[in-house]
Every structure is written in C-alpha cells, then in structure tokens.
C-alpha cells in the first residue's frame, strides 16, 4: 500500500512528506479492514445495485398492484 501511495504522489505531483505517507498508509490499513468484511458473506446469487432507483419495484403504487 505504501508503494501505491508513493506512486500516486508522483503521478499527481503531490510531494507528500514521509510523515504524511505513513499517516495515510496507517489510516488506509484501518479502512481496508472495514472493507474486508464485505467479502465475508456469500454473494453468489446477488447482483449489484447499479442505478436502480429510477422506478422502485416496491413503490406504493407498485405494491398496491401486486
């Protein structure tokens, strides 16, 4: 992860200090742990939410039509 931050810093021209890089890497490691939990459940039959809210299948009108 540290390497990724160095690469981003160079790519964007941020000139991040060593202290800044260490801080970001430490915080990113905590973030990664939170996100890892997403991969711990069975999603074999689950499709992603992708811009689905244009017309809700369970809006009040649709529910009444059931």
């Amino acid at each position: 992860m540290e390497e990724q931050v160095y690469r981003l810093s160079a790519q964007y021209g941020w000139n991040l200090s060593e202290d800044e890089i260490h801080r970001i890497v430490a915080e990113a490691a905590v973030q990664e742990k939170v996100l890892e939990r997403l991969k711990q459940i069975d999603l074999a039959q689950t499709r992603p939410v992708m811009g689905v809210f244009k017309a809700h299948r369970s809006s009040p009108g649709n529910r009444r039509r059931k």
Partner: protein
Amino acid sequence: MTALDLERATIAELVPVIKAKKLSVADLTKRFLDRIDRYNPALNAFQTVTAEDALKQARALDRDLRAGNWRGPLHGIPFSIKDNLATRGVRTTAGSKQLANWIPDFDATVVEKLKTAGAVILGKTNMHEWASGSTTINPYYGTTLNPWDRNRISGGSSGGSAASVAASLCLGSIGTDNAGSVRHPASLCGVIGLKATFGRVSRYGGVLGTGGFSTDHFGPFAKTVKDCALMLKAIAGHDPKDPLSSREPVANYTGAIGKSVKGLRVGLISGYFDEFMSEAVRGAFDAAVGQLKTLGMKVVKLDIPHTDLIAAVQLATSRVENVATAHEYLKNSPRDYSAPLFYRHIKSLLIPADVYVTAQRVRRLICDSFESAFDKVDVMVAPTVGSPAQTIDECRQGFAIVDGRRVEMQDERGTTGTLCTIPFNVTGLPAMSLCCGFTAGGLPIGMQIVGAPFDEARLFQVGHAYERAAEWHGKRPKLDG
C-alpha cells in the same frame, strides 16, 4: 400586518396572508433581511446574503400578485440555499477554497423550481468543506453556530441551512444529504429535515464532489411537517437534466396531512441503532415511540439482516464515487483541500474496483432486507443522531464524553455522527428527521421517520400527527442575550 412574529411564522400560515395581499412580499423580505443583519454575524449561517436580488424578486412577485398571478403556496416565501447548489449569478463555493470565486451561469433544478414557485432566495448558507463532514466547522468560511447554544455545532454538512431555519432567518432551506447532511443538522438544530426517495428530487446543478452519485440526495428544511410537504411538492419530479431522477408521479403530499394514524404499523429496527444512542436520546426516542402508540399506531419489532455491513457499503460507495470527480482538483490544487479531506481522497483512491462492486452486491442484500420489512410495517422510526450537538471544542479535540464514556467523532467506519442516517443513503429510502424532545440543557433531539420508496406522503401523515401531539415544534431558540 405589523403583528407578524417571524419566529412563529410558518409557510402554511403565511400563504393566505400573502395571497390576500395583507402583507407585501417586499415587506416580508425586508423583515427577514433585517433579521439576518441582526443575527447572522454571530451565527454565520449565511455565507452570502443576496439582499438586492431578493428585494428585486420580492417586488416582481408583488407585481405578479397585483396582476392576479399567484404562483402557489411558496409565492413570496423567503428561503436559503446550501452553497453547493448552483445559483445563477451568485457565488457557489461548496464550502471549498477551490471554488471560492465560482459564479455559475445557471440554477440547479431545485433552485429553478423554487423560483418558479415564487420563492424569494435570501442567500447561500455555510456548509462543511465539500459537504464532507458533519460539523460545519469550515476552515475557509468559519463555523456555523447552533442557535440553541452558540458553543455548539449546528451539525452538517448543511449546518448553515439548518441554523438559518432554526433561527428564523428564513422559512425554509434546501440542503444535500449524502450520509445524513440534511437530517443530522436538522436534528441538532430542532427543525424538520427531509431526504426523499433517491430520484424523487433532481440533483442537477449540485456541485460534483459533494456527494456520491448513488448516495446523495437533495432535500428541504422547514419548521413544520406541513411546510416541508409544501416544499417537497414544489421541488419533486422528473428532470430530464438528471438521468437518475424518477418518473414516479409526484403525490399529493399535503393531502396526507391531518389523516388519522390509528392502526398504522411502525417498525423498530432491533440492534443497529442501540449502539449509538446516548441516555438523553434513548429517553426522548422511547417517549416518542410511546406517543405514536398513544396515537393508535402498532409497534412492530424488526430484525433486518446485514445492518452490520451498512457502514462499509456507505464508505466504499460514497467515497469512491466522490473521489472519481475530484481528479482535476487533486491534480491542480490538492493543497487547497484541508489536510484531512486531502488524505481522505487519497485513501479513497486506494479502494480497489472489485471492492466497490462487492459493496454494490452487499448493498442489494441490504436494500432487499429493508424493502421486505415494509411488508410488515407502514413506516419505521429511528434516532437521527446518537447524541445531541457537541461543543465546538469537543469537535476540535475529536471526541466527546457522553454518559461517562469517550465517543470518537471519527472511527474506522467514518463520521460516527452519521451512523444513524447512512442506512437510508445506502437504501435510498425516504427519511425525515423531526424534533422528538430536548435534553435537560435545552438541546434538541431528532427522530427519523422512514418510509417505503416514494411513500413520502406517509412520512408527512405520521410526522404531522406526532408533531401536533408532542408540540416540540413550537419551541424556538433564544437568540438575544
């Protein structure tokens, strides 16, 4: 109409007064501008006051009335607008240094709709930098203070909007809500704040980078549920400029107001919210549920699976979608972000694409779980924020002591103050915060009423019944002294 009390005035009460020309729009506008002159220097709710434009609008609206052209219930009503919504000819900063001098040449659709409905825009309200936090302690435009206690935050990110309504500097406002940014400050300032169903209100003209594409919502602040319903009616509806706006017909929101709630089922979600509630919030929330029972509603306990993953889904979704619009600023003016936000964007760039997609799959499970629960209930209720407004000093030190234990403002899940509001950004369900009590020290406490998709009318029905029974909405902060 010299007896007009601006602190007590509501939109609904002013409609017949303005329509009958007993009070001119210009006079009403001047009175609110005087109030802004008097109280805004201390509160810092407004960042930009557009007095000249407002008076010009007001005089034009008076001419309309004299010509017999009454535009509807918002005719002549003074509003404020959060500063991440584009306003033609008026500086729109998004609370950022990068956009300090941006003057759009167009109006956001919500602003355009308000103007068409006859609203008078008094100015733009202060907000958390790039809408990326919940304190409205802004390093560039100052801190918006809570009208109930000026040592405390107004919440955020739409803190200026909430404070402007709570302090009666206007009669309504429009904010944006990516993680609770309407409902959180509404709760802390004791006003109504609504995030309607995703897609219900167009987001065209919102500043990119102030919310995720699929988690952000725009919504009204008001003093009463009825005023909120009047505002939603004016701003809701499909907008060809926003491809994610819905074609679902706009309901008759005010028609639901005043209907009995007897026999309706109210859901209490087990587990998730319990972790966050302070004793004061727990007491007020339980009392509010008791009040709903007294009104004849039936309480149903709900077990909703996967709520433990809501924070991770929100984090992966909104941060990735947000940073995807920040490349120009990250390349050209990265140090114009405050350091915490700059670092947060870098961390967001480190989230892999497969994690984002996995988050959307988990999100599907969460959405399905919540929507299925609406087979058993008509609405759900939940606290809006786990504890009342923190002091500005507590926010600066990063933690508060609540009920004898240390509560961090940020933890690994993000901003802890919005953990009660994010479930409805992840699911897109409509959620309205309204005042459900006060602490012993006089700070407001908020409760969310949550509905099935596009069932905002039900929120207004239940919210109005509760509001009339509990009468918290009649309390106003003391601004003098």
